[in-house]
Structures are given as C-alpha cells and as structure tokens.
C-alpha cells in the first residue's frame, strides 16, 4: 500500500472507495434514498452525483424492499449496484428481498443468477439519534447463509473492505459504524486497494487474554487494553468480516491466551458473541483457563437518547469483563 495517501475519516474513506470503483468500472452504480443531489444524509456519496450523473447515482423512491429488489434485478444484467439503506433500522422492510432472494439466488439457480450487490448501511448507536436509528442487529444477518457481512473499524479498512465488497461475487451487507464516521482520521491510500473479506485483524498483540470485537467497539476495547497495560497483557482482535467468520484467527488467538472476552454493542441474547464463544468452546475447550465472557448491550430495545449511555458498552465495562476473566478461577 505504498504511494500517495490522504488523511481521511471513515465516512470519507467510504466515499473515496465509491469514487475509485465508479471510475474504474462503469457498471458500478450507487442507489438509495437521498444519495444523489443531497449526497447522502451522512455525505457518504458526496461528489458522486456531480461526477457520474443521475443515471449512475440514483435517487430512489423511499422503499427499502424496492431498493434491494431492483438492485438484485439490475445485477442480473451485469450492473453492480451499491445500494444505501439510510439506517440499519430501516433495512427490515428489505429483509425479504435480502434473505429470500439475494442470499438464495446463487444456490437455487446453481450459479446462473447471482446477486452481486452491496448494501451499505450506517449502524450502531452513541450519537443520540431518534428511535430506530441506532440498531446493531448484525446477528440477524450473519444467521442467514449466502450473505456476507462486513464491518470496518478504521478509515483504511473501510476503503479496502468496501472495494473488496464491490468486487465480491456474492451479496455483501456493509455496515458502517456511524459513531466513528468522523471521530478520527488516518492515512488512507488514494489509489484503490482491497482488503480481503473473511480476514480478522489483530489490532494489538497480547498474551493474557483475547478480546474479540468489531466496528465502533474496537476503539474502547483498545483503550481498555491500554489502561490495563502493566497489569494485563490484552490481545485485541477486530473481526472486520462477521460472515464468514475468520475462525482460524479466533481459535489461534484463544489457544494462545487461553482466556476470551467478546465485546459487542448488539443485544446479548442471540448475539454473535454466542457463536464465537461456542466456536472456541467446541474447538479449543482444553486450552481455556476461564469461561468465555460476553460484554454486550442489554436485551432491551435500543433506548431513547437520554438513557443510551447506560446501554452502550463503555471502557469501564470492558475492563470489568477482562478482569473477571483474568481473575478466574
């Protein structure tokens, strides 16, 4: 990844990926509510309408099932739609198209019709948005076979993962943690590049305990690890792709440290932490020194802004979870 770089925020990196891919391949189109003239409610599609015009940057009617359904149809003739769902909480009207069709077409037509689409959606809480704007229900998506699910946690990853998703011959849901859309910058290569889907990233090496996380939770997890320096040597693994899961990296890390914490902002029951803990338990039971600990959002509908700070996982809760696992037995 040598060459020129820009210092970009995560949302700017998403935008850079879209510019690169639309310039490279005229079949790539962007579609969704307010993505054109308005350049997206988070400005993720800034500049695209001016550069590529209304035929490739398509303001659609307010209809999520319509957006995903027509994207699937467009893909059958070789167009590569990158559809934006304005917030993850509004993806639900499109779940029928996503699960019953995007996820199944390849399998039921034995590869004849393949929905090569990307669905981008900002997700997660922590920005005091109105009801239904803070969902983190990625476990719904990872449960369903045939859809890949990607969640970046840094600007450079966001760009490389989105470009890989656009080039990916399977349907991908690309969830963007909006809490960190603009909270920091880093050097991001100007040229297009890919970060392969399905590979977790070890953000911090450690020997005492492995913490698995993704999205906006990566930063408070790294902060917790930093605060515990000298006391506990924490390894932090950012999953980046939630489906398919990088089980090799998870298992390697768990067997190295023997202690595991999973951190996610999603609800606890049926959350992805359960799948991760079970994977490790099935594969590496004899390496474990302590039960796997979950630090997660509560099993309540995402609260209104006044109480969201009590819902969100914070550094204190992560530290607490790590200490509990390290202290065991």
């Amino acid at each position, binding site marked *: 990844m040598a060459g020129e770089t820009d210092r970009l925020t995560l949302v700017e990196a998403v935008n850079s990926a879209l510019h690169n891919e639309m310039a490279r391949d005229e079949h790539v189109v962007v579609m969704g*509510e*307010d993505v*054109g*003239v*308005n*350049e997206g*409610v988070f400005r993720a599609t800034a500049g695209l309408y001016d550069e590529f015009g209304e035929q490739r940057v398509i*303001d*659609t*009617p*307010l*209809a*999520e*099932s*319509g957006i995903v359904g027509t994207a699937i149809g467009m893909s059958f003739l070789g167009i590569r739609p990158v559809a934006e769902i304005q917030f993850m*909480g*509004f993806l*639900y*009207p499109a779940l029928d198209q996503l699960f019953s069709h995007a996820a199944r077409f390849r399998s039921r037509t034995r590869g004849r019709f393949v929905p090569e689409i990307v669905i981008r959606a900002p997700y997660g809480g922590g920005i*005091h*948005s*109105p*009801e*239904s*704007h803070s969902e983190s229900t990625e476990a719904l998506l990872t449960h369903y076979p045939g859809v890949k699910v990607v969640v970046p946690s840094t600007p450079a990853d966001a760009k490389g993962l989105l470009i890989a998703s656009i080039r990916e011959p399977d349907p991908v849901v690309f969830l963007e943690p909006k*809490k*960190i859309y603009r*909270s*920091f910058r880093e050097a991001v290569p100007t040229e297009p590049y890919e970060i392969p889907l399905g590979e977790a990233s070890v953000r911090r090496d450690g020997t005492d305990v492995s913490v698995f996380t993704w999205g906006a939770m990566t*930063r*408070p997890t790294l*902060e917790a690890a930093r605060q515990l320096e000298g006391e506990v040597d924490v390894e932090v693994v950012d999953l980046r792709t939630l489906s398919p899961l990088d089980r090799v990296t998870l298992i390697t890390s768990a067997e190295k440290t023997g202690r595991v914490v999973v951190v996610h902002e999603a609800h*606890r*029951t049926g959350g992805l932490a359960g799948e991760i803990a079970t994977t490790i338990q099935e594969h590496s039971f004899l390496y474990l020194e302590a039960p796997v600990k979950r630090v997660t959002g*509560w*099993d*309540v*509908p995402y*609260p*209104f*802004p*006044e*109480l*969201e*700070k*009590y*819902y*969100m996982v*914070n*550094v*204190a*809760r992560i530290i*607490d979870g790590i200490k509990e696992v390290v202290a065991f037995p």
Partner: protein
Amino acid sequence: MSGKHELFQYPAPDDPPDAVRVLDENGNVVADELLPNLTDEEFRKLYADMRLTRRTDRRGVSLQRQGRSGTLASCYGQEAHVATAHALAETDWLIPCYREFGTMLARGIDPKYLFLHWMGKEPGDHIPAEYNTVAPPTPIATQIPHATGMAMAAQLLGWEDTAFLCHFGDGATSEGDFHEGLNFAGAFDTPSVFVCNNNQYAISVPFSRQTGSATVAQKAIAYGFDGVYVDGMDPLAVYTVTEEAVRRAKSPREGESRQTLIELLLYRLGGHSTSDDPTKYRSAAEVEQWEQKDPIRRLEVFLRETGRLDDEAIESIENANEALVDDAVVAAEALHQEPESMFEHVFHELTPELRRQADELAALREQYGDEAFDVGWRF
C-alpha cells in the same frame, strides 16, 4: 386524456386537477358552498391550535440549536394539517405521523409530550389513553397498516360510529406498507381516512421521483375508493374535506366509498429535520413562493375580515399559547428517567435474565459511578 395512456380510459388525470380550495392566498372565500359550518369559537380554536403548533415547533427547533433537545422534524408551513384533527370527534382515533404533531396538540395533548420525545426521553411517547391517539412511529409508512387494523378491529367490536384517521408523507406512499394498508382498507371496507401530507419532498427526493402518477389522490381508485386533491395550505379546505371523509367513513351514502384518500398539497418551509440542509436540493425562490401561501396568515385574514378575530383575541391566544409552551418545556426538562427503566416494559414483567442484566448495570453504576458512563470511551 393525454397521449400516454390513449388506449386505456381511466378517470385518473395525467395532470394534477385543481385542488379543492375554500380560501385563496389572500384569505378571500372562493367557494362559499365549502365554507365549514363552524361556530365563531370553533374557528378561533382552529386558528389558536395552528399558532400553538407553530410556537411549539419554533421552540423545539430553538431548543435543538441550544443543545437542549435532539433532532426533530419541523412542520413549519404545514400547519393547516391541524384542521384534520378538528374534523374528528373525540371518540375517533388519530394515527399521526412524526411531522403532523399539530393534530396531537389540537386534540389537547400537552406539548410536554412532544418536547420529551424530541429531548430523547421515552415518556414523550406515553400519551394518555383518553386522547385516542397512537404515538407516531419513526420507520416510514408503518402506521398505515396499523390504522387499517384498528379500523378492522372496530368492525369486529361492533363500533359503528368511529373513524380512524391516519397521516403520512408523500415519501411514505412508495413503501409497500402504504399499498398493503390501503389495499386491506378497501378489501375490508374499513372506516378509514388516509391523509397524505404531500410536502413535495422526502428529505431531498422530489415527488416526481416517488411516483410516476400525477397525484397521490388518484391512487385511491386502484384500491376501490375515492381520492381527493386538496390545497393543503388552506386550513378551511382541509377541514371541509376531512369532515366529509369522516362522515363517509361512518355512514357512506349510496354510491359513496367508505374510505377516502386525502392528498394535501403543501410545503414545509424549513428543513426535513434539524440535521438537514434544504438549500442543497431546492431554491430560495421556490421557498419564497410558498411563504406567500402561509396557512396561518390566510386564516387570520379571513377571520379578521369576517369579524371573528381581532387584535385583542390574538393577543390572548398568544399569551395562553406562550404560557402553555413555556410550562411544557420546564416540565419536559425536569423529567428524568432512571437507567433501570429501560429494562421495564420489554415484557409484561421482568424476565429472570432481564432482572440479572438490570442488576449488572446497577452494580456497574455502584462500582464506577455514573461518570464512567459519561466519559466511558474516548474516540
């Protein structure tokens, strides 16, 4: 009939028909026969509620700017929608949308609930039962099938004299829920009034991108009922049309449909929400042109000229509204929820697991203090 559908004769126009109108833009009566049959007091109440709506709205926006409230969707310019609530009996049901909160104020609901909602406090949605009003949802168009379901339930329960009036925007008409809700209403012949507030934009997307049809009203034909296209900046037209639709919902005459789809052609003078920049997608000239149609001014001129309103009356309306709104802000700012309340009402009683999680949160607060939750993560 224009060339587009020559072979098919259907009564829907390719161009918008003339909108139903009672007052012109200067407040002059242009359709005597459609003037609502209201007492002077009722006329003044409509005016007062529209002003209360604007005051509540303006205060909400300024609280947001001051950082005392969260995002809200303003109805500045759209206040004539208030008249739909005036056309309802107290026993009728209102299923509003987030932007049509003037209807809630007109029903007597304390503006405190709106401020609470905008401040991100859940009790804003705990609207007391006596108002027959459902708390507006956030996902677009989802209330439409609910409204139809309520009307179906009323039929099952043998309620013969209750109408169900549901508001939504023009963008909502693109969602499957709009189609499904109206289709059920036609199929089950429910006592339903559907009101589309066509402010011509769904955030930035213009009406022409929502649909290829000239009006929303004409879509009613496909569901087997009547649609009516109304000047939505004219509160008296809105009242007259809604009153008639409510009457039909309860007792349609021979040849009338029970359901009505009302399209109010109107305009929001502000942004979609407090986080929206409308200058990105519409011109100042367009906004100015619509400012000339201000529904409050229009009604005020009519009421003054017909001797129903004078300076003194306006002043007393304004004083009362100001006090109501001021008190509501104080009450909303003073109300705080306990963090543990988020575990309540997930189910009818706390499950053992939720009890455990609530205890876990309480223990964390005890151990780390509430400050840990304020500064818990640095980005």
